[in-house]
């Protein structure tokens, strides 16, 4: 996209930032970049991937200017290791969890289907790896269902794979990212935010690159937050 857009005007590397973004946020980041690029002369290139891999790459010298992570832990460790610009870490979005089934009447409006035997598999993201998985675990623990549901849980490595398990019909329902099922049919229960710890997605600045700096600032504006909210996240 950048190369096509960039053809008409000469770009210095000063004006282009390389930003690592968590896959779950990729489509929203795309929209944000579009608006940002229209408003400024800066250009943003997005490198989409899992936060764990981005983290390992940054630790080993990857040339990213900023990092939009899927969690809070990894930006924090980078900060502790002195790999970030000081005081640049902030929460840019809060993930929301939705219990979703492609079947029209499986999920009721308070998630009581989880107490029933109307499903064989419940897909969640891996609680060890994915913040959405941890939130799902907290929710099920909170409702006292974690142990009982163990034999029926299947785990995706990330929240996108969890969605795939449900979308392909292999699991009847799953605890997925609200952003992913916002426009999908079927039946849903938007899990109340107080039923799990907040799924904080944090960003850090890794270099003093001006385009990246401006983009981080832009993420905190009302306009950006509106886009983020519309896509199924909440903002702090």
């Amino acid at each position, binding site marked *: 996209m950048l190369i096509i857009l960039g053809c008409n005007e000469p770009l210095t590397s000063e004006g282009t930032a390389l930003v690592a973004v968590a896959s779950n946020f990729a489509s929203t980041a795309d929209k944000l970049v579009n608006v940002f690029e229209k408003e400024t002369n800066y250009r943003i290139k997005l490198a989409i991937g*899992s936060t*764990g*891999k981005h*983290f*390992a790459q940054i630790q080993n010298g990857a040339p990213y200017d900023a990092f939009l992570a899927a969690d809070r832990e*990894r930006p924090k*460790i980078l900060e502790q290791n002195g790999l970030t610009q000081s005081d640049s870490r902030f929460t840019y979005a809060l993930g929301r969890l939705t219990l979703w089934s492609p079947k029209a009447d499986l999920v009721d409006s308070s998630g009581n289907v989880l107490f029933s035997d109307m499903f064989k*598999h419940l*897909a969640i993201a*891996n609680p*060890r*790896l994915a913040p959405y998985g941890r939130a799902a675990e907290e929710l099920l623990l909170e409702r006292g269902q974690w142990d009982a549901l163990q034999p029926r*849980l*299947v*785990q*995706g*490595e990330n929240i996108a*794979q969890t969605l*795939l*398990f449900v979308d*392909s*019909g*292999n*699991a009847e329902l799953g605890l997925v990212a609200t952003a992913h099922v916002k426009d999908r049919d079927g039946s849903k229960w938007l899990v109340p935010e107080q039923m799990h710890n907040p799924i904080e997605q944090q960003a850090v600045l890794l270099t003093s690159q001006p385009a990246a700096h401006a983009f981080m600032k832009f993420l905190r504006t009302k306009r950006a937050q509106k886009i983020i909210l519309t896509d199924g996240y909440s903002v702090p």
Partner: protein
Amino acid sequence: MNLQPEDWNALWITLKLAATSTIILIVLGTPLAWWLSQTRFRGKFLLEAIVALPLVLPPTVLGFYLLVALGPSGPVGGFIKAIGGQPPVFSFEGLIIGSVIYSMPFVVQPLQDAFKAIGTRPLEVAATLRATPWDRFWFVAVPLARSGFVTAAVLGFAHTLGEFGVVLMIGGNIPGETQVVSIAIYDHVESLAYTKAHWVAGTLLVISFLLLVAVYAGNRKFRVWKP
């Protein structure tokens, strides 16, 4: 030792999966490779291309299509469901199906080459001595192609050990059932438990190395011993 029970479990499942898949692949692959090496059928190249196809798709993509095909709304899974069975996704059986497809070219191609390398002459000589096609296959072709079998088994086994994308997609990462060692290592890496990852990966490497050494050493001994 730094390995936890679930890591040993994952190692055990992986070895079981690789061994089972290799046996199935040798059983299915041998007649296929034999036929491919002998036939004058003009459409043979089509079949050869199909056998090589799993090499083309990235493993996660192959896994994605298997997930869709084997799932309850896919053609295969739907059929199984219609006749009253359980779609094999999220089970050890599902992993076997995935591994067999994934490692197929690594078994069929060395076998086919080994059969081909025999040439027509030993088989013709055997035929003049009144060996039936069955005898020619078992007592001429198979012994002469023995190193091809070793290569095929080693490649099939090793390729399944290192399998990641396919099992990631169709397994569901269920500890003790579908969590193989490559996924256990990946989980350790992704959750920043690098030391644990090193230990499991190291153990996998050592076990694999010992197995391969045993196979190749056995193959050498066999050759020397043979009159």
